[in-house]
């Protein structure tokens, strides 16, 4: 095989395709890599099928690989995996452009979307039906939130950085622990989303979320920063903990709901698939993931310069998981 094959996260997909495309243009001796989406989990699943010609070389992920996945990889003979981090992604809350401004805190979101919340010191099924129930400053809108479905890596960030934070802030976490759950289980319970239709899982892509807001003007959607930036005329972004999400605020670490993006490389393929090593190095070049890069234009939050140097150095050192 003389062509690199990549699959995985739909968040990483646009950046990976940009790199793949310009890699193919810049290196006529290599074919343009094939990049598939499908979600972080699906990509890693495919990645861990085994090593060899018929398996993919790189899995993109919008989250860190899980221990179970590493174990599964090992079991299938993919023992050496190189993790490559290449930038950050911001997750934003946005509503219809004509609607009012929102300023969210983890607490608000938790109260609106969690399966169970604390009312009068007791854990009950979430009774809130309107945003105004959650926070008096919010409009009297029926709660309707479009959040990433469970197949997306984005969901995990949403759960840890928003719900679990809100859980802690409202004291629900303590209540869960008090009710006899272990720490882990309590955290899991915190991340549980209500199932009465107020929170809608979107297993498709962000444009589905956008369409849903289009058809329901009082809906709140969760988007990637890049998607929001391309649709600023239709969407109004909410601040989170008082911070407006921008590339800068995320890069500086001010905006809390962000996460690193990764891809995983099969080390065994490095000496075998032509161009694989070159592709990874090309990916990590400033022209690809720096502030002036097309990826950044597409919404990638670039890491600081020193960190980017580190990414490349780590890869070249050949460190495996």
């Amino acid at each position: 095989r003389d062509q690199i094959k990549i699959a995985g996260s739909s968040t990483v997909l646009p950046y990976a395709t940009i790199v793949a495309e310009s890699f193919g243009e810049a290196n006529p001796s290599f074919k343009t890599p094939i990049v598939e989406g499908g979600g972080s989990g699906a990509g890693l699943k495919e990645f861990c099928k085994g090593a060899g010609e018929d398996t993919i070389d790189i899995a993109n992920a919008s989250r860190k690989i899980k221990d179970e996945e590493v174990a599964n990889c090992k079991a299938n003979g993919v023992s050496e995996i190189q993790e490559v981090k290449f930038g950050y992604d911001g997750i934003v809350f946005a509503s219809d452009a004509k609607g009012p401004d929102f300023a969210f805190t983890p607490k608000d979101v938790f109260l609106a979307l969690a399966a169970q919340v604390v009312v009068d010191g007791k854990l009950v099924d979430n009774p809130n039906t309107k945003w105004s129930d959650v926070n008096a400053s919010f409009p009297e809108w029926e709660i309707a939130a479009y959040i990433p479905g469970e197949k997306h890596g984005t969901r995990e960030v949403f759960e840890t950085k928003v719900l679990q934070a809100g859980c802690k802030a409202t004291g629900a976490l303590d209540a869960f622990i008090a009710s006899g759950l272990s720490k882990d289980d309590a955290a899991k319970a915190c991340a549980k989303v209500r199932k009465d239709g107020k929170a809608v899982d979107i297993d498709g892509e962000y444009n589905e979320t956008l369409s849903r807001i289009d058809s329901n003007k009082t809906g709140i959607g969760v988007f990637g920063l890049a998607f929001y930036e391309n649709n600023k005329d239709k969407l109004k972004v909410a601040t989170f903990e008082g911070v407006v999400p921008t590339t800068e605020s995320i890069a500086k670490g001010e905006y809390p709901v962000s996460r690193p993006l990764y891809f995983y490389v099969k080390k065994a393929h490095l000496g075998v698939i032509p161009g694989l090593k070159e592709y990874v190095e090309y990916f990590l070049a400033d022209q690809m993931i720096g502030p002036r890069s097309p990826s950044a234009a597409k919404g990638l939050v670039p890491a600081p310069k020193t960190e980017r140097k580190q990414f490349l150095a780590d890869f070249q050192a050949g460190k495996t998981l």
Partner: protein
Amino acid sequence: MGSFWLLVVVAALAAIGLVAGRIRVGTLAKSSGTPPHSRPAYYGSYLAIWTALPAVVLLVVLAIVRPIIVDTAVRQQLPEAATADGANLSLTMGVIEEVSRGLKVLSTEELDNLKLGLVAARPLFASKGIALASDVPPYMIAAAQTRNSVDGTLGVILETAVIALAGFGFVFAFLKIRPRLRARGSVETVILGVLIAASSVAILTTIGIVASMLFEALHFFSQVSPASFFFGTVWDPRFAAAGSGGSQGQFGLLPLAWGTLYISALALLVAVPIGLFAAIYMAEYASSTVRSVAKPLLEILAGIPTIVYGFFALVTVGPAIRDFLAIPLGLGQSGNNVVTAGLVMGIMIIPYVSSLSDDIITAVPRALRDGSLGLGATKSETIKRVVLPAALPGIVGAILLAASRAIGETMIVVLAAGVAARISANPFEEMTTITVKIVNQLTGDLEFTSPQTLVAFALGITLFTVTLGLNIIALHIVRKYREQYE
């Protein structure tokens, strides 16, 4: 000589057989005075089949076996270290194959230089247009050479064997030809064999599907009790991973089954009357111009990608139904609802009903219509009472096909009815189907052997069984009411 040329040679031999068989039986018939049993062309086909069929079968078998033999030969040559790890081995073999491809285009001088280590392999190969990821150790070059020689030898053997078999078949059949030989019977037996083989594709597909789902489904049921799956009323797989302490019974099938039934039923409610009336109109009333325009146009409806329907439902139909039906009726607020999904899906499957039924209705003999019209029945009475009953089996088949498509559809449901699994009689609420959840769980960001993924297979096999049951019932109904004309 590649497989292609081998096929050409066999085909040529078979073509000769086609002619030779005819001539042979002709001369034999003349000399013996017995007329041939079948048409001369059948003797030609007989000879051609004997020439080509065994040879092609052998070719296919050898083509499958050949790489296995080559791989084994190469593997034996590799140093211990390279063969130890199964995964690496496959990669190594890949590189060797690439190298061996490269070796074929090198000149002897370049080859010698390469073997002596005077030039590096990678740039040399790159200059020939073969990309290598890294330089190759000498043992790989040696292995690649072995590969080439073994492969070459095998190639010669294969070619000889195939051509020999073709020749043998030719001679054998040629000698067997005599006027009383039932050539037509033999040829038709071969055709029948082909027909049976074609039918077995469908059977094999089923076996494949059942096998691939059953095993994983059993795996699922070893982790989750069947009772909680089949009778559970809550679908919330996320937190019920086995061993994670979550409560069992979150894999409730019932809400999904209900949603599937509800949405498909609504879709059929839209598609069957529209499709059937359209079919009747096209077959019985419309002029042939109208028919020849309307029919293919309606057929386009079946080919529009479902994502287009999905967005149409989400952006246009759903809000309209919400604003003009659900809210005034006080039945719901959601733009995602069963009605939207049923309506849009119904539109998609119209052509399954309309076009297939139209053909069946047209095929009903005219004498039957005449019989009814001659008694003073109106056209519609004739259609309702004579034509449709006679066309019933075909129409039921068409409806079943439409129903099947409705059950198997994902995208429209996701975008039009949502993904919330729940049981409700209110058609203006969100609901979802088994198929949606199968797709979801399979493409989800979930662990490999967790019940969350495996449940997809359990759902699949359940759906399979249920639809099988429905089909059996349909078959019995058709059998009961079937009216065989003439």
